[in-house]
């Protein structure tokens, strides 16, 4: 039965498929290969990451002095709106979908995602939506200036009176990216439920796959709320309806519920896959099984459930009645429990391990240390009386950037470095990688730590000018910001040059357990010649237990411990 299944697939495939997996032109086609789509997602979103980062650096340039003197106030307001929107909708979401796309089918022993064409469609909506949003810089009224929340009534004020204005383009772009995410979520959930290899029970499924599932379930229940809110906002803006328009009797607070019902869980959509990356990277580079794997896996799903009932903590200072403040304070704090389980599990994983400080390991460890800090300030923010003081101040900005940059972006870097040899068959340059890590870690601390004291002193977020008493910490933060901008250069250099002429390494340079390492690097089109038959759980370090009972790809010769003893010998 070994090779028979491959041949019909060869004939049935009706997709344009220019050349072998080493043909770079495939990245510019409507390819349905999950690995091509994964890299398309990652590269596209990284370009948007640079764009969003550029906006941030202009903002830090403005904030280096108290007066509004570098850019006009309207430009500053447009910049923070676009920075937030681009970073979330066109960097963090898509890059993680990209990593998930690349890794989930490989990790569960599938040949592709459940709906390959849908997968390709959901990717190609991302550049379209992104260009649509960027095009708002070219229209007369400029881009949206209402922040990435687009709270009415400010978002409904249209100074140019044009029908095509920055806010309309923003809503359309977000709606398109939302539809793309919903399609992606359907695809992921179906794939994970239906396409795990024979023998891969839930508790043999890697923690990364669990966390992607947990994240994508949130997309399914949450996104309809945001999309609905966005459509009502669009109607208010263009068709004169009065859902949220106060002068026509609408209620702007209702929008906040629609918005945060999705947008808080959205934070977990972003952080859960990163938790998954930490859970995959640590065991490999510490040569030790993931401590408390089952609990870590299940805690992802617990986060999915709890996160559906915490959204009002963004609205404590809004017109929110006391009972609601108290209820959501308790639910918000409860999220600390499953998050804590994961952190303790990671610390116990490296405890007594045999660690090597490779670049992915450094980024994972750095990300975890930042996450611990961000989690603790998160509990501060969950407490109503404290939140009423720091609400909408730089304390909040510092907190969520510690989550998004300190933990999530560092986790993404860890993932990219860790699976780079799998994606390309080549090794990145370790020296450049370590330089990248140091710049990123120091830059993160320099820019985001000072935001906490600024917030406690009472500096509101989103201000283009501020009182001179805040000047010192803002200068420090700006220096950190420019350092972070600089930190992307060794990364880009590393990725490009290593992909072109890096040292060729084998299929499993990390000697890692996991189905993705049982195929060639880069993997062949359908990943496995024969579907793997899984006979044990992930993370079999130190046990020399085989992972599969067959040889999915006969050409794999390295790290025979992960195969059956008789086949390997």
């Amino acid at each position, binding site marked *: 039965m070994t090779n028979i299944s491959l041949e019909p697939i060869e004939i049935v495939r009706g997709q344009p498929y220019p050349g072998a997996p080493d043909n770079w032109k495939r990245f510019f086609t409507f390819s349905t290969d999950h690995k091509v789509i994964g890299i398309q997602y990652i590269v596209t979103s990284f370009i948007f990451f640079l764009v969003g980062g550029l906006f941030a650096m202009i903002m830090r340039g403005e904030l280096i002095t108290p007066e509004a003197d570098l850019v006009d106030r309207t430009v500053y*307001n447009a910049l923070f709106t676009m920075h937030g929107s681009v970073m979330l909708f066109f960097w963090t979401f898509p890059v993680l979908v990209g990593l998930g796309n690349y890794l989930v089918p490989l990790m569960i022993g599938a040949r592709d995602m459940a709906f390959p064409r849908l997968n390709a469609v959901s990717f190609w909506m991302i550049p379209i939506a992104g260009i649509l949003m960027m095009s708002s810089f070219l229209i007369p009224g400029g881009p949206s200036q209402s922040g990435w929340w687009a709270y009415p009534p400010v978002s409904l004020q249209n100074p140019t009176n044009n029908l095509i204005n920055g806010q309309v383009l923003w809503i359309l772009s977000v709606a398109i990216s939302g539809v793309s995410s919903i399609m992606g979520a359907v695809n992921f959930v179906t794939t994970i439920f239906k396409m795990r290899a024979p023998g891969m029970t839930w508790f043999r499924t890697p923690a990364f796959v669990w966390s992607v599932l947990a994240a994508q379930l949130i997309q399914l229940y949450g996104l309809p709320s945001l999309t609905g809110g966005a459509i009502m906002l669009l109607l208010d803006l263009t068709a004169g309806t009065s859902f949220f328009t106060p002068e026509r009797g609408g209620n702007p607070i209702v929008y906040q519920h629609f918005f945060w019902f999705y947008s808080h869980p959205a934070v977990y959509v972003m952080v859960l896959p990163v938790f998954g990356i930490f859970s995959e990277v640590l065991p490999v580079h510490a040569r030790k099984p993931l401590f408390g794997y089952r609990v870590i896996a299940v805690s992802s799903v617990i986060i999915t459930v709890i996160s559906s009932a915490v959204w009002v903590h963004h609205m404590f200072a809004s017109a929110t009645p006391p009972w609601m403040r108290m209820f959501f*304070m308790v639910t918000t704090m409860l999220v600390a429990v499953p998050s804590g389980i994961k952190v303790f599990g990671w610390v116990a994983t490296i405890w007594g391990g045999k660690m090597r400080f490779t670049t992915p390991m450094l980024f994972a460890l750095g990300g975890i240390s930042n996450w611990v800090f961000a989690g603790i300030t998160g509990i501060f923010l969950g407490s109503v009386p404290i939140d009423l003081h720091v609400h909408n101040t730089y304390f909040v900005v510092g907190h969520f950037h510690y989550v998004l940059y300190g933990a999530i972006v560092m986790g993404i870097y860890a993932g990219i470095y860790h699976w780079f040899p799998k994606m390309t068959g080549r090794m990145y340059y370790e020296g450049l990688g370590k330089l990248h890590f140091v710049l990123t870690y120091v830059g993160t601390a320099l820019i985001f730590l000072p935001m906490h004291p600024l917030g406690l002193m009472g500096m509101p977020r989103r201000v283009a000018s501020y009182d001179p008493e805040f000047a010192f910490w803002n200068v420090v933060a700006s220096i950190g910001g420019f350092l972070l901008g600089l930190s992307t250069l060794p990364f880009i250099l590393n990725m490009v040059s290593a992909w072109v002429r890096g040292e060729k390494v084998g299929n499993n340079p990390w000697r890692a357990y996991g189905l993705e390492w049982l195929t060639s690097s880069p993997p062949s089109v359908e990943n496995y010649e024969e579907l793997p038959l899984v006979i044990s759980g992930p993370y079999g370090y130190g046990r020399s237990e085989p992972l599969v009972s067959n040889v999915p790809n006969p050409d794999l010769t390295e790290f025979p411990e992960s195969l059956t003893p008789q086949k390997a010998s």
Partner: protein
Amino acid sequence: MKKLRAILIMSIYAILVALASLWMAKQSYSWFPPEASAESKLTDDLFSLFTGLGTFIYLGVIGPFIYSLIFHRASKYDRSDAPPIEGNTWLEVIWTATPLVLVLTLSFVSYRTYEKMSIRGPMELVHLHVPQMIEPAYAEPFDSTPQQDIQKAVETEPIEQIDVTARQWAWVFHYPENDITSTELHLPVDRRVRFTLRSQDVLHGFYIPAFRVSQYVVPNEDINLELTPVRTGTYRLRDSMYSGTYFAANQTDVVVQSPNDYQQWLAAASAQTPGSAFNQAAYEYSQSSEPGSGNTKDKVAVRGWATIPPAPPPVVNYAPKHEPDSPA
């Protein structure tokens, strides 16, 4: 013997962490603006508790983490695996139960603080569509007497009513008893003050950092908020909810005065005929809408896009003579 040493080291580390946490909890008071209201003392105490516990947890996790990073590394040619320890049920139960108990405790303490502020404090008096939902809070079985300063202020003098109107981009304060208006907020010390917050256009945030409370101002809704200034001085009121182009300039000074000074100020203000106040947003807008008006201070490197014009400068009895300056 080895076990004893491990226990000893861990105990010493725990004591050091506890000391560091105590120190941080004490330090945390200095990270804030002055405590100018009775409510701010409650907030700062709560924050100090969170800082202490937060430091304890942070160091408790980071300590073993860093120990691992230093001592649990593979030697250069060691390609073997570490012992396959997959979990420990007792350990996992402990580190699930401890955070659970901790966050429930912190929630409870936060609730108590909130009650102490809110029996007559700001949040209980946010009148919304569900007033009956507020009632049960009074019937809670545990102590919910307000903080002493607040109680004393309420008992000695009647609550001072002040109407606050927010708009793009100005604050106007109306003192209904004397029927005077001002763009600077003057408050009597040691007296309970009730603000009625109204917005004429978009959402704004009424935020005085020295008082530690912020509250959105919502169009079509009257939101009441009570505070107790306890320290004379000049503080800053900032718009904390992004409200459009000149949002960052929508600030004013808050002057907390002794009862005598306050009465004098009221009398002086009511003697003045209303005049147009200085308004930063309107000023900047007029500068930018007249190209070549020649004021280099207000020129920026990158010109902007069209904006909603600011509301005309408010006409009030009292306005500070110059641009308001911020306290140090």
